[in-house]
């Protein structure tokens, strides 16, 4: 019964290793294997989440070695993100069928599915890791597979973007590894709960602050927080669309979950400048909201637009983390999940449109709304949701973060948040205008057809989640409530 936890992370990893072997002889089986493995992960994480709802957080000791010496996998509210991760990955894998056949060389196809599975396993493992070193290992798994996924489509631009991403990722990894080393040297332990206890006894504050700064900087780089976002737009725009959905929706969240985890480690330690740290986060977040939205406003390439919107949305989450009171943390936690759904919807729907029309600038895509009504509908829902129009999923996070800004006595941040929402809406209006209300510029647009069903179904499923995630927002709020309680209470 308790083996579900390690299996949730291991099955996709093992399957990821086997898929190229299977696919060598029978390339057509690769997608089936990947689907089976990710379907299994959805089931496993759903069971785990159900147990979390009923019993609260629980752990699994690998090989029977108890924490703090053994490897501990821990399933708590933040780990429940793995259910969303698995669901979105399943949607992406279904979607990949027709898309990847056209966009990726046949001999690379098994590798493509293998990389996606490794990525999935890495993220699930990252979300459930109970000790710092495994956190690092899973992060590397995610990162390395992401670098390769950016380049998987081929072409010089993609390779260059992947290399840029690799450089940034390497810096981030070094920072995290270094800080983990410092913490280990200080406390002699790697288990996060244990480290948190032992840190209180550490005399010198200097190295502790150094570790906090190193971990935060490392994870911020992974999360592409402005102004260290420079790697993100190119990587996300150059990757194939299903990969962009994974990178933008899920992989950047690795940085956020990392921040949440390490915050919890340092929360109980006296004498740390946590308030100042929170203020820095909040200001960086506010800056990212406005800057990301402004950059997005001036893009012609629709995928670049979406990529900059991710920069802006990461700003919301970090602002929520920085304000660090109950409402703001709830907002940040929910937005981690909801933004994943929304951004995946947008990238997949836009991907369907790019796949069918072959063009990706707003100018060339004029009038596509009439030719591809369902995909365009999904883009519209995603756009309204990311702008935070009630009752969509995107509204909830912003609502709580704004409430948190008032509770923290800093209404200025609430104003920034709304300004950001307005700017975001301004650039999505440009997309909708082009899709629905402008006459097509070239005549090829009139012969475009709606995307095939395997692409359309996941898109519509995710678009429905964008609305249902808002209307039934009670559940995610209840999910993150205990974890928020602990963070807000401690900090």
């Amino acid at each position, binding site marked *: 019964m308790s083996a579900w936890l390690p299996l949730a992370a291991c099955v996709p990893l093992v399957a990821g290793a086997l898929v190229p072997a299977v696919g060598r002889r029978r390339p057509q089986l690769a997608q089936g294997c990947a689907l089976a493995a990710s379907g299994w992960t959805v089931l496993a994480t759903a069971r785990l989440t159900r147990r979390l709802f009923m019993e609260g957080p629980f752990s699994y000791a690998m090989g029977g070695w108890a924490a703090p010496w053994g490897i501990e996998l821990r399933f708590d509210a933040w780990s429940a993100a793995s259910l969303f991760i698995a669901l979105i990955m399943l949607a992406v894998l279904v979607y990949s069928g027709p898309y990847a056949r056209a966009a990726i060389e046949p001999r690379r196809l098994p590798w493509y599915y293998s990389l996606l599975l490794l990525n999935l396993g890495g993220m699930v493992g990252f979300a459930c890791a109970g000790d710092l070193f495994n956190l690092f290992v899973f992060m590397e798994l995610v990162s390395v597979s992401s670098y390769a996924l950016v380049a998987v489509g081929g072409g010089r631009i993609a390779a260059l973007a992947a290399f840029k991403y690799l450089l940034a990722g390497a810096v981030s990894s070094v920072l995290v590894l270094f800080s983990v080393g410092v913490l280990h040297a200080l406390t002699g332990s790697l288990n996060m709960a244990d480290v948190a206890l032992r840190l209180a006894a550490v005399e010198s504050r200097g190295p502790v602050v150094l570790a906090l700064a190193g971990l935060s900087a490392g994870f911020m780089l992974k999360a592409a927080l402005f102004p260290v976002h420079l790697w993100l737009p190119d990587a996300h725009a150059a990757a194939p669309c299903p990969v962009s959905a994974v990178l933008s929706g899920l992989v950047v969240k690795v940085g956020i979950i990392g921040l949440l985890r390490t915050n919890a480690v340092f929360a109980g330690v006296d004498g740390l400048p946590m308030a100042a740290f929170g203020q820095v986060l909040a200001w960086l977040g506010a800056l990212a909201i406005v800057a990301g939205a402004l950059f997005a406003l001036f893009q012609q390439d629709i995928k670049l637009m979406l990529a900059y919107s991710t920069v802006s949305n990461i700003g919301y989450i970090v602002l929520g983390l920085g304000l660090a009171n109950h409402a703001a943390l709830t907002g940040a936690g929910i937005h981690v999940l909801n933004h994943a759904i929304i951004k995946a919807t947008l990238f997949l729907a836009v991907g369907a449109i790019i796949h069918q029309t072959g063009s990706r600038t707003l100018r060339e895509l004029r009038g596509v709304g009439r030719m591809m009504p369902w995909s365009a509908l999904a883009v519209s829902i995603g756009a309204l949701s990311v702008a935070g129009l009630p009752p969509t999923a995107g509204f909830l996070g912003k*609502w709580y973060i704004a409430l948190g800004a008032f509770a923290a006595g800093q209404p200025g941040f609430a104003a920034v948040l709304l300004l950001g929402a307005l700017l975001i809406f301004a650039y999505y209006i440009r997309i909708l205008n082009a899709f629905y209300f402008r006459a097509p510029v070239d005549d090829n647009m009139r012969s475009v057809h709606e995307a095939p069903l395997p692409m359309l179904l996941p898109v519509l499923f995710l678009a429905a989640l964008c609305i249902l995630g808002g209307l039934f927002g009670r559940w995610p709020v209840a999910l993150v409530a205990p974890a928020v309680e602990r963070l807000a209470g401690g900090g």
Partner: protein
Amino acid sequence: MEVIDSRIVLAPAISLACALLIFLSGGHAAWRATLALGAAALKFAVILSLLPGSLQGTVYAYTLFDFPPGIGIAFRADALGMFFALVSSTLWVLTTVYAIGYMKDRRQKLRFFGFFSLCISTTVGIAFAENLLTLLLCYEALTVCTYPLLVHDETPEALRAGRKYLVYTLAGGALILFGVVMVQHLAGTLSLSHAGILPADAPRPMLLAVFCALVAGFGVKAAVMPLHGWLPSAMVAPTPVSALLHAVAVVKAGVFGLLRVIYNVFGVELLAMLGYAAWLAALAAFTIVAGSLMAMAQDNLKRRLAYSTVSQLSYIVLAAALLTPLAALAAIAHIANQAFAKITMFFVAGAVEQATGRRHVHELAGMGRVMPWTMGAFTVASLSFIGVPLFAGFVTKWYLSLGALQAEAWWFVLLMIVSALLNAAYWLPIVYLAWFRAPRGLPARVREAGWLLLAPTLAAAAYVVLLGVTTRVPGMPFSLAEAAVNFVSGTRGGG
């Protein structure tokens, strides 16, 4: 007495379902017309069936979703909400008939009628909103749904107007959201079922910020100067859209929001203590005069109508800001009075354009001789705006003046007289031109517009007279307004 009744969710849901049906299967013109008309009639019937209970003081409530947790998407039909819902659903029936006639030869009718239905759905949602968040939700949805109607012709001019509209209204929506978050922070609730929820001991700067954010936010759609810029440009839309949305649904949503803010969020007592309403009243008074002056300068008939709307809406704002029961009565009653008179005028403008292609005031010479019924309706509406007794507009001016005297602000009575003169100065020339000048350059075959256009026009004009003549008859909208005033002010000052 409060009852749980799903009919108040049914009312917006009918139009929503109608919109979905139209989008999915509305390719055929007759089927589409049947759907739109059927939904309009059904919705009207549902709301009408709530009326008897509402007149006796029953309040209907229904909670739909618990979103966000603890606040919820909830509906509640008190007398004020019922009044607004009744007005808009009545007018929707008329406008649907008119639109079927008007849009006959236009393109993209599927999109038009689909979003048309969505708009009325959200408008009734605004009327029945139980809390500020549900109100905001429907308010923003209304913005989004009107946009495709506004840019219907897809001309560069229409797109420009649409952009302007979105900039104004979305900025307003963001301000409202800012205010709503502050209300939630200060009061811990967003419910609109009390006469004031904000605590009187909250910090003054915060209360001022809430007032400014909410009033400015709703003031955009209510077209209070200097936030009115979007309304005249929005006149590029097809006439039924201008009629329903820019004289009735959208602008009234803004006004209705303001009423809710004044009566239910702040409450009359708190607002009287704070003294902010005097500023709002002054702004509204300025808008009444300035809007009229600008209307006088317009030659394009629809633009003149738009500026007249700007001016007329501020009657409601002014009346609400006076904070006396009699003025509140004027504010609520004017929602209906202005709506019916203004929609008559828009219908006339559309019919004249359809029949003759003329859009300017100076081209209307002799129009009364070729289109007597249409111009007759226009005359009725003009007289109502000027405030001639026995027409709807007089009722407003009468109670507003009484309310001003109650508030010991006699200069507003003076303002009513000035405004009546100004209204006469820009409506009567049109009436004169239409009836007492010979037609010029009209082809001989020009006749009245078709029945689909004429019938709603005449019905709306008849209603203007009806509202004016039967004000004190029980069961008419005015008694509902009285019930609403009893609720919001908690007093028996209904007149």
